[in-house]
């Protein structure tokens, strides 16, 4: 029972990874990052034998699905992971994004506008942002789990409206939703619903852009305000943080990203109806965030991948795939209670320099809450 070593061995993988990452120089980081991103882009082409979900499910579409859920997870992570607002109805925003696209572009729509897909994207983002504000403004004064159930209700209400209101066509749905108009030299469409690869590349690119923006936010006054709200809302308010406004921002930005993902999705499948925007889906989004490590951008992407991948990987034993999925979640959570990459994020633009000057090293957060929390148990 030799203490220090035992303790050192317990340091979570995520932390070690982060420490290692933090210890690298900028150029070293790039040297790792660029090949990694390249590899991610090449995945659908490589279709690696062990990783692939075929023959049960098309691997490229699975990858696209993983990517769109990853985008959702990044948006949800702003709300849940950063600002600490538990949102169980995030699927509502996803649905609003998808439906906005459908309503404006599908020939089935009562609007009969037939806008191209690209024009629908900003529209969808705008409408979801507004819906985020509409939901947030009256409810963001609620605390913790009261907010959670209200958002859950919102998600359900969105779905039920789509189901009940005639112009939204219920399960009859909207068909022939167009994708981006890009043609190859031979005149064939690049973005078709059967070929997941271009969609995947598009989504990954969007993810990278969103990640950059979100990362900027994180290491700024706004990101700090969010985390402060998450930690102690009253104290944050007393330190001059306009908590309501920042919560609303978090909600609106999260919603916008969700809506964007919904719009991309609608373009890819070409048909949407009121099925599949239910609570379960919503909670799976949340599972992606928590599984990957709430608050960690890279983590939640990993989480999204797992959420999509596990059921698809086990298509060949279709009957058991959701059982496997359920058990996998339990086991993963028990063995990695902080999420796969649950490490805290940086909140300062110049943090590295500051800490370096002070203690001679880059920032290293010296201890883990996971173990430190023993005395307080799970609660609060």
């Amino acid at each position, binding site marked *: 029972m030799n203490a220090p070593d035992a303790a050192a061995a317990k340091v979570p993988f995520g932390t070690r990874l982060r420490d290692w990452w933090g210890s690298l120089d900028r150029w070293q980081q790039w040297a790792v990052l660029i090949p990694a991103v390249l590899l991610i882009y090449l995945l659908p082409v490589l279709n690696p034998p062990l990783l692939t979900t075929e023959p049960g499910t098309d691997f490229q579409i699975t990858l696209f699905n993983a990517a769109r859920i990853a985008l959702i997870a990044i948006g949800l992570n702003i709300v*849940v992971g950063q600002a600490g607002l*538990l949102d169980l109805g995030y699927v509502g925003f996803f649905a609003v994004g998808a439906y906005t696209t459908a309503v404006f572009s599908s020939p089935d729509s*009562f*609007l*009969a*506008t037939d806008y191209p897909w690209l024009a629908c994207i900003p529209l969808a983002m705008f409408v979801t942002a507004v819906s985020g504000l509409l939901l947030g403004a*009256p*409810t963001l*004064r*609620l*605390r*913790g*789990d*009261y907010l*959670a*159930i*209200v958002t*859950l*209700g*919102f998600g*359900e*209400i969105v779905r*039920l*409206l789509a*189901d*009940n*209101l*005639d*112009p939204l066509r219920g399960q009859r749905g909207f068909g022939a939703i167009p994708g981006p108009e890009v043609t190859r030299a031979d005149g064939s469409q690049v973005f078709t619903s059967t070929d997941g690869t271009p969609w995947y590349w598009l989504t990954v690119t969007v993810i990278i852009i969103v990640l950059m923006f979100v990362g900027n936010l994180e290491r700024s006054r706004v990101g700090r305000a969010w985390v402060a709200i998450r930690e102690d809302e*009253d104290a944050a308010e007393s330190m001059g943080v306009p908590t309501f406004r920042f919560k609303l921002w978090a909600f609106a930005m999260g919603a916008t990203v969700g809506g964007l993902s919904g719009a991309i999705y609608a373009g890819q499948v070409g048909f949407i109806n009121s099925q599949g925007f239910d*609570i379960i889906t919503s*909670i*799976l989004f*949340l*599972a992606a965030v*928590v599984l990957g490590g*709430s608050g960690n951008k890279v983590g939640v992407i990993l989480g999204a991948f797992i959420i999509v991948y596990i059921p698809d990987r086990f298509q060949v034993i279709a009957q*058991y795939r*959701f*059982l496997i*999925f*359920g*058990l*996998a*979640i*339990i086991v993963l*959570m*028990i063995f990695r*209670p*902080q999420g796969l990459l649950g490490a805290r994020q940086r909140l300062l633009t110049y943090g590295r320099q500051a800490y370096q000057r002070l203690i001679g090293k880059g920032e290293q957060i010296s201890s883990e*809450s*996971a*173990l430190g*929390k023993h*005395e*307080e*148990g*799970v*609660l*609060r």
Partner: protein
Amino acid sequence: MITHVTSVLAQDPLIDFNFQLLVDRFWANTIDGLSYGSIYALVAIGYTLVYGVLRLINFAHSEIFVIGVFAAYFTFASLGFVPGESPQLGLFVLIGSLLVAGLVAMAVSGGSAVLLERVCYRPLRKRGAPPLVFLITAIGASFAIQQIFLITLGANSQPTIRLLRPTEVFEIFGARVTNIQIMTVVAAIVLMVVADTFVNRTRLGRGVRAVSQDPATATLMGVNRERVFMLTFLLGGVLAGAAALFYIMTIPAAAVYNGGFLLGIKAFTAAVLGGIGNLRGALLGGLVLGVVENYGQSFFGGEWRDVIAFVLLIVVLMFRPTGILGESLAKARA
């Protein structure tokens, strides 16, 4: 485009209102709502208790309820009742059978809830997992339990076994009140009083409350935390088992793998509506939800039922941010 939209809307109103039906059905809706709301309430207690102590939305509680439904069903079956037949039972046989089925359901549900706590949540606690992780694990457990039922018992609900047909006992303002409804409401209130007394009046109950507020300090008072957690799940499970019995009596074709989902969501909504963490709130929330849902269905139409439930919740929370009876969790501690 605007004119187009308005013309679409003009020819077909989005929602029809039926005020007459609301008036006609007022008492019938009230009575049906109270009895179905009682089932919500019993299930809601499980959510409220676990939430109160662990700050965990136990999404697998709906599955605990389904386990109870199956337990009650298979008890009927093993008591020799056969699907399709509607036996003429003596009073004692009837009460005896129901009692046995109820006890079995309560025991099985309670036991599974404790097992769930042991297998899924305790390891997390030992590792100091943050609250959200419990939530996700609950989802995982819910998935797994559902799928086990799907794989072993198939996708269809079990053939109906009916011990008791609803028969009218008396009328209130022309609305009939059936034997099953009376049993459900009475049982819900009795069980609620028992649970409430337990939590608020007994030493162990006080331990439960202490753990819910400050687990570390509670252990410093000599409260066995693990025992409290177990007890909480047990109590919640037992009440869900009781709810299961009344549920399958009301809706005999309910023994199916995914039969708990919608009810679980509603029960949780009821718990929050009443003020989560508050037992009496769960009862009140269940009843209010049941009744208002029914009024709304008459007024707006049946497809709006769930919308009404959630809108009610949002409206109530906007005016009372901690539910109808919920005390402010954010105690002034500045």
